[in-house]
């Protein structure tokens, strides 16, 4: 996987979530995504950015335009140093929430992405990586 361009944005305020949406949109447009694919990726980014803020206590996201030999995509890596997730399987279930949300953040973001991985250590933080490829 070749990284064409990469930038890191802070996620500390609600306005930062809006900026993450905008920067993700720009990366998806630059990679030639269709409108539906742009919208799916931006929505996933919005869910994960809110998780980073609400549950991780803030953090950052690295937004990268990436190319494989045969396809173009966008990769997002959300990192926080929050409390971590004890039971990832449970957190990924639709409707599960430890906060006031609908519990669609993680599971929804996973469905809206082509690749999804999550690493978390209790007391250390959480890193969620997603990628979506141009159809």
């Amino acid at each position, binding site marked *: 996987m070749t990284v064409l361009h990469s930038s890191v944005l802070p996620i500390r305020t*609600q*306005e930062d*979530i*809006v900026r993450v*949406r*905008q920067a993700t*949109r720009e990366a998806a447009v630059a990679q030639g995504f269709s*409108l*539906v694919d*742009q*919208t*799916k990726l*931006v*929505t996933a980014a*919005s*869910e994960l950015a*809110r998780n980073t803020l609400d549950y991780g206590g803030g953090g950052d996201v690295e937004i990268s335009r990436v190319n494989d030999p045969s396809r173009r995509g966008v990769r997002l890596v959300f990192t926080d140093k929050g409390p971590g997730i004890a039971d990832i399987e449970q957190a990924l279930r*639709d409707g599960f929430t430890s906060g006031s*949300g*609908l519990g*669609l*953040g993680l*599971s*929804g973001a996973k*469905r*809206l992405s082509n690749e999804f991985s999550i690493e978390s250590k209790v007391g250390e933080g959480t890193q969620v990586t997603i990628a979506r490829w141009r159809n």
Partner: protein
Amino acid sequence: MEKIPILKMGRFLLVTVQVDMHDQLAMQLQEDLTERIVAARARGVLIDISSLEVVDSFIGRMISNIAAMARVLDAETVVVGIQPAVAVTLVELGLSLEGVRTALNVDRGMVLLQERLIAEQG
């Protein structure tokens, strides 16, 4: 402070969301709308989201909440102008906006609200 304007048209309130809302702005709209429904004795709320390029679970929940609060205050809510890409994404995300009436555009949304009013008066 930044606010989303609420217009009054007869017995209805009209909201056009034209900015990419951050969460606090969406919460503020929820509060403002409930107050205006009571103050204006409104019977319907029409929310035009045709400018919104993203509706995530937070905004989706806000829309459902507004519809539920309005219903408790005896007003009907119709959401209009959902972009096709947003509709596709909402369903995949797992949000179906249950309990929220939708229409393709403002004209059809107004017809829905007026029909309800006429049906009650008739």
